[in-house]
């Protein structure tokens, strides 16, 4: 007997799919999509026969299912780090921080002009001074003439390097290189 799926069936199926998706995130995006698409198709077919609750239950445990898919891909070597994803994460995080810093400096300029619409002289923004350095803005009768960043080089290098390394390690899941992780 074939039943039409209700919204609750679809919800239950998608919830199972998302859970498997999270657990197979070590695979390439293309492979994840292949697996999840096939799993969704099979779950829908099974749900039409026996209901979604039983269909999901008959998978026999989502964690075990995900581990089986990982075993197919990696064997007993365990999942590998995703170096490319790590690099992408570094660019994304650094880009976001750059955007935040830009928005902050823009806010500082707006603040100066709001306080004195005819501001003249050099104004320094010290919000990022401990890490990056101070940023100087030169105004002439309420007009921004120039601006420049005075880098505190050692601190900037340490902060940028540490942040980049941490983001890269987390994004790439570098701990998978450790022997105890490779044989999980």
């Amino acid at each position, binding site marked *: 007997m074939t039943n039409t799926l209700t919204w609750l069936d679809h919800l239950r199926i998608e919830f199972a799919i998302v859970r498997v998706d999270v657990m197979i995130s070590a695979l390439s995006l293309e492979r994840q999509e292949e697996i999840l698409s*096939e799993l969704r198709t099979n779950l829908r077919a099974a749900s039409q026969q026996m209901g979604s609750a039983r269909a999901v239950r008959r998978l026999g445990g989502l964690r075990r299912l995900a581990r089986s898919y990982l075993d197919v891909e990696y064997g007993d070597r365990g999942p590998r780090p995703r170096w490319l994803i790590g690099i992408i994460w570094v660019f994304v995080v650094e880009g976001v921080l750059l955007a935040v810093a830009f928005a902050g400096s823009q806010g500082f300029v707006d603040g100066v002009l709001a306080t004195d619409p005819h501001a003249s002289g050099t104004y320094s923004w010290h919000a990022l001074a401990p890490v990056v350095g101070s940023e100087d803005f030169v105004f002439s009768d309420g007009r921004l003439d120039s601006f420049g960043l005075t880098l505190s080089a050692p601190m900037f290098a340490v902060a940028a390097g540490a942040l980049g390394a941490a983001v890269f390690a987390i994004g790439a899941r570098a701990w998978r290189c450790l022997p105890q992780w490779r044989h999980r």
Partner: protein
Amino acid sequence: MNALHDPQLLKGVLSPVLLRLVAERESYGYELVQRLHDLGLTGVADGTVYPALARLEREGRVVARLVSSRAGPARKYYRPTPTGYDALLAGASGWRALAGIVTPLFDRPLPDRPARPREED
């Protein structure tokens, strides 16, 4: 737990069985689950069959193609490759050889009680 529900017993024979089924008729994942149940292998979880198919595909023993379905999204139908046929023949032969040895053992009359420890000579 009987043999039909023992995952360890089923695990070793699942790949040749799946190869045999798709050799008889191209099928998609859930259809294979149903066919296994129809055979009497009701203890095979759906979640065991799908990764097994992925493994067979990765090993080049089956190939798959997407076929659109009126009931929903396109289904992935599997059929064996020449390598898969060879693996099926080898698997079937191995199973018969194993069964040929093990079946007569289990067909022997079983003592009423477990054997007593042998006394030292």
